[in-house]
């Protein structure tokens, strides 16, 4: 239980900091300007650093996982996505991982029954929950562009309309707000409910989930309940786009809670498991081509090695070889 409670407490404390800071100490400049710029810098620089740090390390061997038929004889149908032999095959493979969580779709659940017998049932809940979570987050982030641009493009307007088409509240209710909370609830519950998941989960697995919950709840509270005045918020966001350092207008402290938790997430991002966002694009088992017999893969640190040559071998066994009528180089 400790590993669940600690992150909850951590997020609660983190949420209190800006509240107290703005409400009682009047630090709106710190929380509205200084920290956001700092967090954005850490996010961008940190993430770039992690990507470059990975990419500068060599991939000495072709280690692609082949989950479908290789390209071999003409009359055997190659599985071009699961066993890619051209760059565009691999691009589709990687993109289908990124956008559709292709590998998770394969997921099944093993059960040991009396006998003993193992059975494997289809188990797509993780796939579904994961998709709902990530896609909702993406839509929510894109939706926020209306704060950052005077006139968001038609795509963003469409996104906002589509997301709010239910129109059951004032302002219009966004489906993704509910969806992301439902998905997080599921993702947390499955970590708690299953014995395997309980064991393998760490505090660092719960923390980002709770942190995002905090961000979403603060956001929802602002929009539907506290109904915070959006004009100064939009001014502030437009200011960010111009790298302006002017002080924010009068905004409720709930907004600073929302913003500060986002900043925490941004700073946490590059140094935690959240970097999987970048890793998934370059995972060698998925991004490489299964053409290692067709085209030589180069290893930058490959160096010559001393091995036992045929000559040394024959020197040891020449007499025995001759007796057995095996041809030799030197009589």
């Amino acid at each position, binding site marked *: 239980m400790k590993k669940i409670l600690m992150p909850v407490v951590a997020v609660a404390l983190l949420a209190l900091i800006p509240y107290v800071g703005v409400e009682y100490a009047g630090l709106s400049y710190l929380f509205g300007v200084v920290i956001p710029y700092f967090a954005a810098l850490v996010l961008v620089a940190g993430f770039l650093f*992690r990507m470059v740090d990975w990419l500068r*390390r*060599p*991939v*000495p*061997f072709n*280690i*692609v*996982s*082949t989950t479908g*038929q*290789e390209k*071999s*004889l003409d009359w*055997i149908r190659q599985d071009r996505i*699961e066993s890619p032999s051209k760059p565009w095959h691999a691009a589709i493979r990687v993109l289908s*991982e990124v956008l559709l*969580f292709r*590998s*998770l779709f394969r*997921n099944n*659940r*093993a059960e*040991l029954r009396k006998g*003993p*017998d*193992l059975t*494997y049932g289809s188990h797509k809940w*993780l796939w579904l929950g994961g998709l709902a979570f990530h896609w909702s987050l993406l839509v929510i982030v894109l939706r926020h562009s209306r704060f950052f641009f005077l006139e968001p493009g038609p795509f963003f307007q469409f996104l906002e309309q589509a997301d709010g088409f239910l129109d059951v509240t004032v302002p219009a209710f966004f489906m993704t707000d509910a969806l992301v909370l439902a998905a997080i609830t599921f993702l947390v519950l499955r970590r708690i409910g299953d014995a395997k*998941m309980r*064991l*393998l989960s760490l505090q660092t697995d719960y923390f980002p989930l709770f942190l995002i919950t905090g961000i979403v709840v603060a956001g929802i509270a602002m929009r539907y309940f506290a109904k915070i005045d959006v004009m100064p918020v939009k001014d502030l966001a437009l200011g960010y786009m111009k790298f302006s350092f002017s002080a924010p207008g009068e905004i409720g402290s709930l907004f600073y809670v929302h913003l500060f938790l986002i900043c925490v997430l941004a700073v946490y991002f*590059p*140094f935690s498991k959240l*970097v999987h966002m970048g*890793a*998934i694009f370059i*995972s060698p*088992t*998925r991004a490489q081509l*299964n*053409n*290692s*017999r*067709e085209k030589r893969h180069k*290893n930058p*640190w490959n160096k010559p090695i*001393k*091995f036992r040559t*045929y000559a040394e*071998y*024959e020197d040891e*066994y020449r007499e*025995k*070889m001759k*007796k*057995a*009528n*095996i*041809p030799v180089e030197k009589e």
Partner: protein
Amino acid sequence: MSKYLPKQSELVKEFEEKPSVLKGDYAGREWWEMPFEFREGNFCFPAKPEVIKDLGFPNPRKWLPTDDDWKLPDGWQKILKDAMKERLKKYRSLKLYLDSCVRCGACADKCHFFLGTGDPKNMPVLRAELVRSVYRNDFPMVEKILKGFAGARKLDEKVLREWYMYFYQCTECRRCSVFCPMGIDTAEITIMVREILQLVGLNNNWILAPVSNCNRTGNHLGIEPHTFVQNIESLVDDIEDVTGVKVNPTFNRKGAEILFITPSGDVFGDPGVYTMMGYLLLFHHIGLDYTISTYASEGGNFGFFTSNDMMKKLNAKMYHEAKRLGVKWILGGECGHMWRVVHQYMDTMNGPADFLEEPVSPVTGTKFTNARATKMVHIAEFTADLIKNGKLRLDPKRNDHLRTTFHDSCNVARGMGMFEEPRYILNKVCNSFHEMPENTIREQTFCCGSGSGINAEEYMEMRMKGGFPRANAVRHVREKHKVDSLVTICAIDRASLPPLMRYWNPGVSVYGLHELVGNALVMEGEKKRTEDLREEPMAGFEDGEEDED
């Protein structure tokens, strides 16, 4: 039955009663608090001092994992940390896979060792966490600031023992990586950890003894050239007894068109020898101009389970010998990890093989463009092409005494992607073939439980547990379709599946694919066939009955 093996009834009881994460609960405990214990049956013997000395590896000594004192070298922590740092620099995969796991748990119940033992540390995610927890603590990483929070721990002797135990309960089969949304491959981590454990003298005799043999004699079994030839010649005699046909393999012959390399288990071990007889019959049938080398007489490569350098060193013999003999290209026999090495590593390590020619089948003229650079063709690709072009005279009825299923070998499946060729061949050489359940074949195939060099007698208990998911899938088709023959294209499978079948599914025999090809081949000048290559009677060909052919 091995003294290292509990009775089947005891193991079944353990499956059903002992709590495991599969069905039970470990309320309130963390994985790093769970005890583990070395006892007879759950470790492979460490390498003998003379073997280690012969290979020039560090810390040769006599010891057992059950000892209190493992006689580690001074400063072993530093040795391991430095070695790990070096490999983090050399392999993007290692760094990436230590960094990017989100612990989603998709891999948790995909490992055959987890399914067979219920031990949580056999969940691939936790196997990797054994290393990640130390990585987070000890390696230069910004995550250091979040130490306790991120589940970090020091590299102490308990952790080291845990590594030694659990990285030999991984067979590098890559099944978990199929399900991982990040494509994390536990095999990459296991390969690295086993490699650095060598540096402090933690190793496995069943791997290093063959490595040492292979280096000296050319093959894992340590067969010297004259014995190697003698053995194949005795197989030639056996073939003549069964078929009445005399085949003529040649050895170390310069100027042959093709060099044929197969695991030495096919030359010496039962039932591998029957597969070898199948190859010999096939080559005779098509009049192939080939030779077998006594120097490069090993297809397999236990160096792969040792270190990158050792893999390269043993593999170098293949091209070296092909060059010396002046062949045009290399044909490789049925094997699992051999093909992972040949397909994904050989050309990179020891290529370019510009002294060879792009492989072309001398019988059909088919160009094997997929092997254009490496110049090595898999026997199943070669044979499938022969059959497709109608170059083989086959009588599948000669395998009517067998009801078959096919076991995809991990490395050929997930490290090469060959699924259709063996199935095509199998369907052409026998009349009864039934697939095991879909979650246990093809890219989702289960390891035999003994891959990656843990096929040791003293490890029998773990092997029977690790092989349980495979055996259970075989039992399914045995009950449903009366399957009695498990066909594979892997030499380790041929060695390890027979005891697994005897234990879990008595009555199921293990065959190599080309043994069945050998049975089905109608040879020119053959005598009336009544027995298969094992000299067991074929169905419908009994003496006195008219052969329809």
